[in-house]
């Protein structure tokens, strides 16, 4: 047994990487609304303005498009910008810069320029966040060539990915961080993190022969819980944490489905034109014959997110829905008679989160 395993909250992992980025290079800076205030992006930048100065940890006017463009200019001039959006929804105000400029600056000018930067966007959920504080927009940006879009699902993933992005990648990266993850403790293995060969690669989190579950962000945790619940019923899940939404490990997905013959995709966003649709495209184009059953996808209801708790609980799939879908897919039976977990929204399960946002 290694002694290296410790426990760290997602928020703490984020803080460690932010502190590390500022310590590593004088030319790195964090910029975003409220990065220097008493909440410090949910604790992930808390105290860093005092430590490194307000020119390194910059609060901004409410100007998402300009801040993104300013980060482009700063990046061209040798700085490394880390932008924060306390809700991914606000990032839409910067869509022109992200899609028309950031994604294209390297290609459009034939490689004359590079604009390395990290954009951190927090995906909200529960406690009445409503339609404009909950959107999980990974597919919108992963659609655009030139962007790398990641969704780290635990503390180890943050500690693995962020230093690599900040220190090694000379291109823009957008990371969607799920708010529900922030206060959760995860086991981390420093040695394993240090030895990871491809820090942004999709990860096989669990092995099983009956069904492949491809999941993103907090849905990886849900898939792990579902797999724990179903193991006693001899239903065994292969779970792939996609991590890199824009550049998934297609070989890993195809190999897994070749083994299990069954594929379930659980994403934090809507299914249409999203991660679910894209993983289906990959399988359909590259290896349709590996599927023994039709694909099953889980995502949010095809509506804007409602605010009332009763509606919100219906809008998101829960552990019961996930287990039920896995059982139906694996047994081939609508009435599978396998005991399912209580119907409880995951936000009640992860009781740490209590708003206001």
């Amino acid at each position, binding site marked *: 047994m290694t002694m290296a395993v410790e426990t760290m909250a997602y928020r703490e992992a984020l803080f460690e990487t932010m502190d590390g980025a500022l310590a590593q290079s004088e030319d790195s800076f964090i910029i975003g609304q409220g990065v220097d205030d008493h909440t410090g992006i949910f604790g992930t930048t808390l105290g860093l303005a005092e430590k490194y100065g307000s020119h390194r940890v910059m609060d901004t006017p409410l*100007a998402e*498009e300009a801040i993104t*463009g*300013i980060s482009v200019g700063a990046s061209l*001039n040798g700085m490394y910008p880390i932008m924060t959006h306390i809700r991914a929804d606000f990032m839409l105000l910067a869509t022109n*810069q992200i899609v028309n400029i950031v994604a294209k600056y390297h290609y459009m*000018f*034939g490689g004359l*320029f590079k604009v390395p930067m990290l954009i951190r966007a927090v995906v909200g959920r529960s406690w009445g966040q409503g339609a404009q504080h909950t959107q999980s927009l990974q597919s919108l940006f992963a659609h655009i060539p030139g962007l790398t879009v990641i969704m780290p699902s635990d503390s180890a993933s943050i500690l693995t990915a962020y230093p690599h992005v900040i220190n090694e990648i000379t291109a823009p990266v957008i990371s969607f961080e799920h708010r529900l993850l922030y206060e959760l403790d995860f086991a981390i293995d420093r040695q394993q993190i240090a030895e990871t060969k491809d820090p942004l690669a999709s990860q096989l989190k669990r092995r099983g022969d009956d069904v492949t579950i491809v999941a993103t962000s907090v849905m990886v945790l849900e898939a792990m819980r579902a797999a724990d619940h179903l193991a006693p019923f001899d239903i065994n899940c292969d779970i792939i944490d996609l991590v890199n939404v824009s550049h998934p490990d297609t070989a890993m997905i195809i190999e897994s489905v070749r083994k299990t013959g069954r594929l379930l995709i659980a994403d934090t966003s809507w299914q249409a034109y999203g991660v679910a649709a894209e993983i289906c495209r990959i399988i359909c184009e590259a290896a349709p014959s590996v599927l023994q059953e039709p694909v099953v996808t889980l995502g949010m209801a095809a509506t804007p997110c409602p605010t009332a708790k009763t509606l919100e609980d219906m809008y998101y799939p829960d552990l019961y829905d996930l287990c039920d879908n896995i059982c139906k897919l694996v047994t081939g039976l609508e009435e599978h008679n396998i005991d399912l977990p209580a119907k409880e929204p995951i936000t009640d399960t992860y009781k740490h989160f209590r708003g206001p946002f």
Partner: protein
Amino acid sequence: MTISNLYIKLFREALKIRRVEERIIDLYPYDKIQSPVHLSIGQEAVAVGVCDALRTEDWIFGTYRSHALYLAKGGDLSLMFAELYGKVTGLSQGKAGSMHLAAPDVGMMGSSAVVASTIPHAVGAAMGAKHRQTGQVNVAYFGDGALEEGVAHESLNFASLHQLPVIFLCEDNGFAAHSPVEMRQSFDRQTLLETYKIPTTLIEEGWDFEKISKVMSELVEDVRQGGGPKYLEVKTYRAREHVGPGEDFDAGYRNRDDYEHWCAHDPLILDQDSVALVEADIKQAIDAAVLFAEESAWPGRAELMTDVI
């Protein structure tokens, strides 16, 4: 009239730009340049005067109408023609074309087809320059229509708030595509800039590259010494259509009288002695650049798929 060294230097530069664009007009019907072109004919003096006041290591960010800016900043003519032709020897292997000229080695840091979108880039580069204490001046070069965009206001606010070494250069030709300013702006631009506490300077004589250079030089020196952001607006006149090689005085949104008023001041038209002095060299340079473009190879699949990430 006594002719200064500065005058003849800038005259040569401005005439070169005009002749380059006249060559583009000549070539356009032959489909040698298969992309939109936004010509600067009539506006050359602004780019020439502004860039004369800058060092090579000072940066400028332009728009889709940037042939003049690129050349005035010192961009190579052969690489530009090859880029317009879509050849692999072009600045950006043909991936950029007329609307996205760039040459980082001379401080031409990019140009965008989306109005106002490069304004924050100059502000951000200025933030980098201030942080790293390089003494570099950054220029956001845009048209009057850009000041209607939200990002322009966000950028002005940020630049003033942080007293960044950036100059906002408004090239006012009076039209956003075909819409006159009075249909677009409820505000007075000078007052607007004063609201952001950014000092403004206005030059009415947009044909006078010497004056533009002198005024710009003073602003550049001030900004370089830490004097904070400045705004310079230069009135000018676009002689050709918004996009394309032709004239459009019969389109109904403007008339030829305005054009002729500007021609009556234009040294590139009036000063035929200086034209005669520099014309031959310019023609030779353009011939060579066009030949280079003609003889260059096309980009292929390798270029298509490289430099995406």
